[in-house]
């Protein structure tokens, strides 16, 4: 299989094939009820935290803006449910133990209807106004990075965007939220693509889907508006195809130059979840107040994709989905790059694509593994999508030669996909060492 793709030059080079475990791919998206209290962090995105515009004790409507963007690289927050602002205080979130959050006590029998929003005719908007509308909606990349969408859709002066690449790969095992969105919200997605194309001035849009989701590709093909320059392309399944640079290589056979953005090749990449949400929110003039989250894991009684109001505590989500009491690890995101959380009071934020629960026995296989010194088998070199030499980097990290890692062995190109650690037969925590090394180099650069 690997050899075949090597000769045909398919997809991107290297990478790994973890078992898909996409058990929830065929269940419809269901709605989660409101938790009694919703905790909306002011910083759910990359960039500056938003500024609260409500006061403690104030009543808020579902969909009402409760925090304004602070500058360009920032987005507003909206109330996910009707209720009363109970507090604006420091609470634990996935970003850290103390982050500023707006706590809303939800009124009982609060309706699911969005009560705030002014429908707008986007086709009459010039491109820069669409971008502003995207910012007003509080949109960030829903794939996991949570980079503000309006900043991504802004074409800098002198640059020109020719292609909008729509990322429907969802290469992380277990996660199916993008898959379900592609199947169930294909029409919303097309609307979102159309607006994004107008905002960026792209001539065509290409939706890249991994070939393990034929239902999604089929649904999107059926939803394609006639005569449009939107294409659906199935790419061979491989991790980490969801990385935008890997997807561009899989589609176009070119490599985005190191240290540059896809924009340098005239491309803008957006996640399907993001564009589908845009397609639903922009025409209605609403803000982002809920997202689709995959709740799964071995032993979860009711796994599935849930439409979760932002700010819902993880404990409420787990309770509703029937997580086993003996769960020992709760991961936000997928198993390859997700973050495990210390506290179950942490809320679901805009960047959370999945809640994955592992029991003790699911971890046993991994924990029982012995660690060996590097036997230089070369598996990591064969799996690194960025073409680095993790074996050498790991040895340098053990010797604390961080400068050599950065200068001679291109540590800066590592995007922490975890392929090296996944394949390492010696059970060496390679990517973990690289994270430490990168942090140390960053601190050195500042000092």
């Amino acid at each position, binding site marked *: 299989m690997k050899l075949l793709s090597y000769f*045909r*030059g398919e997809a991107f080079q290297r990478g*790994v094939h973890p078992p898909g475990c996409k058990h929830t791919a065929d269940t419809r998206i269901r709605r989660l009820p409101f938790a009694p209290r919703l905790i909306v962090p002011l910083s759910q995105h990359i960039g500056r935290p938003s500024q609260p515009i409500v006061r403690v004790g104030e009543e808020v409507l579902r969909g009402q803006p409760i925090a304004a963007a602070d500058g*360009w690289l920032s987005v507003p927050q909206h109330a996910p449910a009707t209720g009363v602002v109970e507090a604006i205080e420091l609470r634990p979130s996935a970003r850290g133990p103390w982050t500023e959050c707006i706590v809303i006590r939800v009124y009982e029998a609060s309706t699911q209807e969005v009560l705030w929003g002014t429908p707008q005719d986007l086709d009459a908007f010039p491109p820069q106004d669409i971008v502003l509308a995207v910012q007003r909606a509080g949109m960030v990349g829903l794939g996991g990075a949570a980079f503000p969408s309006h900043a991504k859709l802004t074409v800098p002066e*002198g640059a020109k965007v020719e292609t909008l690449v729509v990322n429907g790969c969802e290469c992380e*095992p277990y996660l199916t939220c993008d898959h379900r969105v592609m199947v169930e919200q294909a029409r919303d997605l097309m609307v979102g693509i159309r607006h994004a194309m107008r905002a960026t001035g792209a001539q065509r849009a290409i939706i890249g889907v991994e070939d393990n989701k034929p239902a999604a590709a089929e649904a999107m093909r059926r939803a394609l508006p006639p005569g449009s320059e939107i294409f659906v392309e199935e790419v061979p399944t491989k991790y980490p195809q969801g990385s935008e*640079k890997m997807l561009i290589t899989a*589609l*176009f*056979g*070119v*490599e985005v*130059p190191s*240290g540059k*953005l896809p*924009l340098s*090749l*005239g491309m803008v990449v957006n996640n399907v979840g993001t564009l589908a949400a845009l397609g639903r929110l922009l025409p209605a003039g609403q803000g982002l107040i809920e997202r689709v989250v995959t709740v799964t894991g071995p032993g979860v009684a009711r796994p599935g994709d849930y439409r979760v109001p932002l700010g819902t505590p993880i404990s409420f989500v787990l*309770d509703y989905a029937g*997580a*086993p*009491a003996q769960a*020992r*690890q*709760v*991961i936000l995101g997928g*198993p*390859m790059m*997700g973050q*495990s959380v*210390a506290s*179950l009071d942490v809320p679901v934020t805009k960047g959370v694509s999945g809640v994955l629960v592992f029991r003790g026995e699911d971890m046993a*296989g*991994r924990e029982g*593994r*012995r660690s*060996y*010194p590097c*036997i*230089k*088998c*070369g598996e990591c*070199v064969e799996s*690194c999508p*960025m*073409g680095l030499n993790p*074996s*050498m980097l790991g040895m340098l990290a053990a010797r604390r030669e961080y400068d050599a890692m950065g200068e001679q062995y*291109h540590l800066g*190109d590592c995007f922490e996909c*975890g392929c090296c*650690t*996944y*394949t390492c*037969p*010696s059970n060496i*925590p390679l*990517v*973990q060492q690289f*994270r430490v090394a990168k942090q140390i180099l960053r601190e050195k650069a500042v000092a």
Partner: protein
Amino acid sequence: MTAPTRTEIRSAPHIKGPRSVEQIMANVVYSLLPICAFFVYQYGISAAASILVVTASCLLAERAFVRTGTQAGSLSDFSATITGLLLALTLPPGFPLWMGVVAGFSAIALGKALFGGIGFNVFNPALVGRAFVQAAFPAAIATYTPSFLPGRFTQFIPSSLAWPLMAPADTAAWLKAMQFDALASATPLAKWKFEGTLTAAGDLLTSLAGHMAVGPSPVLILACGAYLALRRFMDWRIPAAVLGSAGLTAWLIFALGGTKYPDPFFMLFSGGLILGAVYMATDMATSPVTPRGMWLYGALIGVLTVVIRYYSGLPEGVMYAILIGNAATPLIERITQPTPFGKGAAIRARKSASYTLHPDYISREEAGAKTPKKRFFKNKPKQ
């Protein structure tokens, strides 16, 4: 409330591939078993005793060094078993057993424990052990016996049972009693080097044609190697490079030098080249990790093997070629680092791609268009 009460924090990735050191090493051992069985079939109980004694000596030495904290690893990782089996396969079947113990011990002590154990060794331990006994017991290691002797399953080759520190019994006299001439116990390589007689490559390939003093069949070794390569427990590039470069060098010299040199097939299938290329050169710890480095390393070993065989006083050169290749590995790795994504010439579009880049951007890229990376921060409106 069924939600969990106690959670743990770990760093991503949270799942792990199926591959482990034990699994790799165990599969190498499995693939060596048919080869060992063939060796026993060829030489009888002497070969069996040699394999057992050498492997046991390696395991005991490993155990001792791990126990004393001299080296990392453990017996259960099977790496010492591989060293023992390979070492036994490179020794003559009638090699005195006490010398086999010395070989096994020195393989682990000098080849592995000295450097810190599994993964840290610079040289292939089995070859270090063999090099040690080749220097220590040059006569014994050059004494081969013909295969498929009658009564090989009931009778030891007399030299096997020599007392420690005593000279082994004379095998030539024993063979004479069995109506074999002295030439029969010379290896095909020695015959070619010192007598000028060539053995047919086809006979060498199977090791089954009569009473030849050869190791296990190259065909069998290649088949076992193919199993490992297909299951990706071994990198196919190294044997391909070793055999390719050895064959090419031998063919070039054969084509230019004429009758003075043997044909390339004889070179490939005689001696320990196949065993060395498939099992010794591919030892993970001592070969490069970079794909281009593997080709270079294999090619170096192949050329050196032929050069040593042709131009040195020794009939066999695989061992020294691989040891030199091992020594060159860090250097080879340094000059063959992989090209990172987006830094190489591959920025040009692949032809089989589904979509083509707009021509404007290809030219823009070549003209060195600027990245607007920091722009978002620069344009930020002042508060």
